[in-house]
């Protein structure tokens, strides 16, 4: 170790001088620091340089005039993550492909599922009508939600929470299920469109009202897909 320091002393004034900033910022390895301290003990020039570098360090660490407003900047960036199609991060790019493609696929799947579901619902309802007992028990689940016409909706991924809230408020709608894996929400419509205790004639009216609401939803640029789920269909589907 002593031989090493001797050799270092002979050749290393410049090496030490170069490393002084990192002695000052305290990031040298123990061995490096020891060598530098030994050199400083015998080199006035490096001692002076070290003290000047300490002044520089203090100067650079003083308060600055930078304005720090992380929230505002973060909001801008989050908005960019929401709206830029390139925002998919690398772990998902390979698996999922582009968001637009996914949405298209989701819409097709919904369409296909709806057709299949309607068919199976019809045949299942026939069976149910044949086999269902003509009484109900106290423990039978009241089909509150199912007796209300609803809507299946897919929203644009760029839609903000505020826009969604506004849409639900103006449509008098509530999210009752969803999002499904394909991003489908089921919306129920509250008063003034319908209530769960309406007579069937009124229910038809309320279905018409929901249908009108669905038409209205389709006009909203944030709605990619909207369809009516009639009360009987949604009850059968449950």
């Amino acid at each position, binding site marked *: 170790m002593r031989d090493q320091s001797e050799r270092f002393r002979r050749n290393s004034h410049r090496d030490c001088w*170069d*490393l002084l*900033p*990192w002695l*000052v*910022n*305290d*990031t*040298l*390895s*123990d061995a490096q620091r020891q060598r530098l301290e030994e050199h400083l003990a015998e080199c006035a020039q490096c001692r*002076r*340089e070290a*003290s*000047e*570098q300490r*002044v*520089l*360090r203090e*100067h*650079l*660490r003083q308060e*600055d005039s*930078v*304005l*720090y407003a*992380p929230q505002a*900047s*973060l909001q*801008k*960036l*989050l908005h*960019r*993550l929401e709206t830029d199609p*390139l*925002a*998919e*991060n*690398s*772990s*998902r790019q390979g698996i999922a492909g582009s968001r637009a493609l996914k949405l298209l696929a989701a819409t097709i799947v919904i369409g296909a599922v709806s057709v299949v579901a309607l068919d199976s619902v019809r045949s299942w309802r026939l069976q149910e009508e044949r086999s269902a007992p003509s009484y109900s028990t106290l423990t039978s689940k009241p089909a509150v939600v199912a007796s209300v016409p609803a809507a299946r909706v897919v929203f644009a991924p760029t839609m903000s929470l505020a826009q969604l809230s506004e849409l639900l408020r103006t449509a008098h709608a509530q999210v009752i299920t969803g999002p499904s894996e394909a991003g489908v929400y089921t919306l129920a419509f509250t008063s003034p469109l319908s209530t769960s205790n309406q007579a069937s004639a009124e229910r038809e009216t309320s279905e018409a009202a929901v249908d009108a609401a669905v038409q209205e939803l389709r006009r909203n640029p944030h709605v990619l897909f909207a369809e009516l789920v009639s009360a009987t269909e949604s009850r059968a589907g449950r």
Partner: protein
Amino acid sequence: MLRSVGNRPISANAIESADDRELQLLRRVARQDREAFKELYFIYHRRLLRFVMRMTSRQELAEEVLNDTMWIVWKKAGEFRAASQVSTWILGIAYRQTLSTSRRTQFNAQFASASTELEELEGAPADDAQLQAETREWLDRGLAQLPLEQRMVMELTYFLGHSCEEIASIMDCPVNTVKTRMFHARRKLRIGLALLADSQAE
């Protein structure tokens, strides 16, 4: 690349646990976890903004570089392989973003036209507060006039407190290049530093 801080176990633990924590956050970011991303953003906002501001001197440009940097962090989090510290990786991205923004906007031009009065300071008596203030101003101008790479080495060393090896990793260059950049920067600031050191010693 862990710092060798053998006889200072507390600070060593602090550095390692901060890096561990950031690594956990980054792994969550790779899984599209926005809460983790926000947390990482808040951890890095101040030091990145300050670091970039030192290079650009323009707040709005610095904010832009900062967000471009964190945008890349979001997109590439899954590619981080823990071969370096999270902080070194993120600062490396910030460094490259700053360089490319510098080329695009040529924000360095404003520094070239700023005048310094190096000679005026030399030999002046260093005995009052006003001179100290003037020397600090001179130092700021001197720092601003350094080539971008030299300014970055200064900032990474003295404000952000990185080791020479970490800076080499951030700037993707040999350790000797870091030392050479620092060497030139120190030479250019020598006069002001000597005055300031003298006036503080008195």
